[in-house]
């Protein structure tokens, strides 16, 4: 009964979305305030309906209702409660429902926080959101219905893929979806503005918080996924340039570009057409990401669906939305007059350079991702594009970006002098170069990657610090510190996010350059050296978990006679899916992780043991967290809070008009 209620409210939500997508749009065109006013209740009702539907599906998973096809395929009575719940979105149909729920949530947020928008713009934004809702709800109802029943329910389910039974992965999809779908707001604002034929500073101020929020969620989602790969897949890799990873990375890059170009529109009313195009493309890449993940078009470790019917449907959604938006863009972009002009050395041009680099690097990721498909279709060449290509073709853009970032961030608007902007940074530059040289001298016979990464990372971090310090103005130390605490949150956000990028650059280089690896057969009781550590395999025993069997090793790590850590790496078998997984044991540290993996028993006795020392692994997650935190600081900046708060004043202000 509850399940049928969920199904019914999903169909109702589709009907409401149809209303939301059409009538407010007509209303806005005819200046009919009654039709326009429909958009708000429609968006709220849609949220209530889809939330009901989602709750019903969650209920079915929690009580293990195996009459539901989806629950049978993806759950099991022995599964821990957390994974019963995360199992709701650990599959194609459920993840789409989460997608739709997130979309409805953003639509409702547009109602709650969009009070200060002009009525026509608000109606149009919500109508475009409604159209996206129509598309995805139709996709779900016609090709991927989560509420299908089974005629003869089995006694128990098939369980969730054991690799996905993990806390990191339980929260990875919701964050990614908040990011993907958050970009739909930027898209809706762009399309609505194109229909209105008007883009100004106010528009940029409205669109930027949504983009920021989406970017923050994407950052967290990507970092969680990367962290999961690091500890779960068993060899400590954190990024594989897998098509599905690329699918989340491309919208992240474009969203980052959009964040920066929206600043130019907000402050200088320039780069308008480009910003609109980025807003369209950001959501376009989200749809492409959904397409890549959901259609299984590109072979990859992550694809969980492989139904061509679904692939074609998403492709149609992609075609309609991108085709429609880009046609609208082609018709209207010419009318977007740029007001603020700027010289080729200025804050605007630095932000433009940021945009070009981010967009081109996104393009490189895109072409690398689809190249195997293109090559097979055009020349019948079956080939692969993997890590070495992306490392070679993508990294240079990030290096250039990191090089110009601190200087560009210090430049004044309109017209700047390169030398003058570099002047306050000379200390940071010298320090970064010195650090690179020091590290180069300390390590012998290794690649230049480590020192270069350290110097670049330090340059970006120190640059961000200098930027903040310069903003504190002149005067005594106390005065400057006082002013520093009173700086706007956007300033702090900028410095924090940029530092996060610097830290991430350093960590990526360090992980590539200085990792230590050791693979050998070890008997119980044996000691062996790994880097500066002594490692002892103390014991190997069998342990039974809630829904798995485990072979657990006890390994002690010693340095200079003192025990650093006692770790318990496992090899698990999940009997329901007959699938083995490795559970690496990690001793997390500030400057290094010790990462141990127990392998199969060997014929001549002993076990295969893999030991890694991963330098600065935590800095990678720390850097990502700093980027997300920086985004959050910016999001809570006064000017956005004022914009959100303006809604409460509107009703009072109206009678005075």
């Amino acid at each position, binding site marked *: 009964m509850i399940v049928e209620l969920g199904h019914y409210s999903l169909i109702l939500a589709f009907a409401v979305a149809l209303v939301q997508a059409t009538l407010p749009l007509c209303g806005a065109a005819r200046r009919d305030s009654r039709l326009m006013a429909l958009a708000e209740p429609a968006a709220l009702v849609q949220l209530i309906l889809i939330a009901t539907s989602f709750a019903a599906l969650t209920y079915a998973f929690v009580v293990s209702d195996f009459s539901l096809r989806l629950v049978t395929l993806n759950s099991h009575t022995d599964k821990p409660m957390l994974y019963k719940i995360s199992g709701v979105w650990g599959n194609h149909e459920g993840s789409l429902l989460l997608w739709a729920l997130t979309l409805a949530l953003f639509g409702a947020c547009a109602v709650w926080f969009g009070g200060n928008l002009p009525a026509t713009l608000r109606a149009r934004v919500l109508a475009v959101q409604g159209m996206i809702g129509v598309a995805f709800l139709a996709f779900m109802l016609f090709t991927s219905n989560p509420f299908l029943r089974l005629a003869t329910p089995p006694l128990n389910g098939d369980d969730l*893929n054991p*690799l996905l039974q993990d806390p990191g992965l339980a929260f990875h999809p919701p964050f990614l979806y908040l990011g993907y779908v958050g970009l739909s707001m930027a898209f809706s604002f762009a399309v609505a503005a194109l229909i209105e034929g008007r883009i100004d500073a106010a528009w940029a101020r409205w669109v930027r918080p949504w983009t920021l929020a989406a970017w923050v969620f994407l950052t967290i989602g990507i970092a969680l996924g990367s962290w999961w790969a690091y500890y779960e*897949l*068993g060899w400590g890799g954190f990024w*594989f340039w897998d098509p599905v990873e690329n699918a989340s990375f491309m919208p992240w890059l474009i969203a980052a570009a959009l964040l920066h170009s929206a600043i130019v529109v907000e402050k200088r009313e320039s780069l308008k*057409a*480009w910003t609109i195009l980025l807003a369209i*493309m950001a959501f376009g890449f989200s749809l492409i990401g959904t397409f890549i993940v959901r*259609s*299984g*078009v590109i*072979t*990859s*470790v*992550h*694809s*969980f669906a492989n139904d*061509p019917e*679904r692939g*074609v449907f998403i*492709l149609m959604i992609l*075609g309609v939305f991108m085709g429609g938006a*880009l046609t609208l863009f*082609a018709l209207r*972009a010419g009318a977007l007059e*740029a007001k603020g*002009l*700027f010289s*080729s050395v200025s804050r*605007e*041009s630095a932000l433009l*350079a940021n*945009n*070009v680099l981010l*967009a*081109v690097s996104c*393009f*490189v990721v*895109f*072409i*690398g991702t*689809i190249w195997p*498909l*293109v090559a097979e*279709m055009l020349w019948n*060449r*079956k*080939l*692969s*594009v*993997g*890590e*070495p290509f992306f490392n070679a073709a993508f990294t240079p853009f990030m290096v250039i970006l990191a090089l110009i970032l601190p200087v560009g961030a210090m430049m004044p608007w309109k017209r700047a002098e390169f030398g003058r902007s570099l002047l306050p940074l000379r200390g940071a530059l010298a320090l970064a170069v010195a650090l690179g040289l020091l590290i180069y001298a300390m390590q012998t016979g290794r690649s230049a990657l480590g020192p270069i990464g350290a110097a670049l990372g330090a340059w970006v971090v120190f640059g961000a610090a200098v930027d903040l310090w310069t903003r504190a103005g002149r005067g005594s130390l106390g005065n400057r510190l006082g002013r520093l605490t009173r700086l706007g949150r956007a300033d702090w956000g900028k410095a924090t996010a940029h530092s996060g990028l610097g830290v991430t650059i350093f960590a990526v280089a360090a992980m590539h350059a200085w990792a230590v690896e050791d*693979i*050998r057969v070890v008997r119980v009781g044996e000691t062996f050296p790994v880097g500066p550590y002594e490692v002892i395999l103390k014991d190997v025993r069998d342990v039974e978990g809630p829904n798995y069997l485990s072979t657990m090793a006890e390994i002690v790590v010693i340095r200079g006679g003192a025990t650093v850590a006692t770790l318990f790496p496992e090899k698990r078998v999940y009997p329901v899916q007959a699938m*083995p997984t*490795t559970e690496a044991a990690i001793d997390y540290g500030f400057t290094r992780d010790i990462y141990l993996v127990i392998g199969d028993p*060997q014929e001549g006795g002993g076990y*295969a043991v*893999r030991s890694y020392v991963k330098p600065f692994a935590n800095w990678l997650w720390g850097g990502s967290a700093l980027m997300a935190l920086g985004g959050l600081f910016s999001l809570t900046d006064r000017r956005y809070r004022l914009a959100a708060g303006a809604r409460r004043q509107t009703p009072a202000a109206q009678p005075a008009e």
Partner: protein
Amino acid sequence: MRTALALCLALSVLTPAALVLTAPPALAVQPDEILPDPALEARARAISRDLRCPVCQGEAIDDSNAPISRDLRLLVRERLVAGDSDEEVVDFIVARYGEFVLFNPRASGSGWILWLAGPVMLLAGGAIAFAITRRRPTAEPELSEAERARLAELMKE
């Protein structure tokens, strides 16, 4: 901007193919495979990190647990011990398993398009961006009568 449009058009030619997922835990290089000579072993690892397992989903033979990856890892080491250079080892494997196993696609024939796409886009983007900064100010729009009156009013105050 036009390139972005072309990029979207390029997408419309994508066709979905049905491919199945298997995600085995990667146990990679086994201890018995490792060569006694550390220099040779380091070369073997570097080569096998860039070779794709022919039956897995986007895994290098270095990370893969599939039997064929083990065979390939042993083959790489066999050729290295026999005295082949790194390029000869890779050519040897590509000759037998096709260019599909190369994670680093060769910049030959149509491969050039892939490798040059980024730099060409950067040049194009840079040129467009530079053109934008060179833009001359368009003539200021004339003030309308109402605006002129309002301006005069403001000036009086």
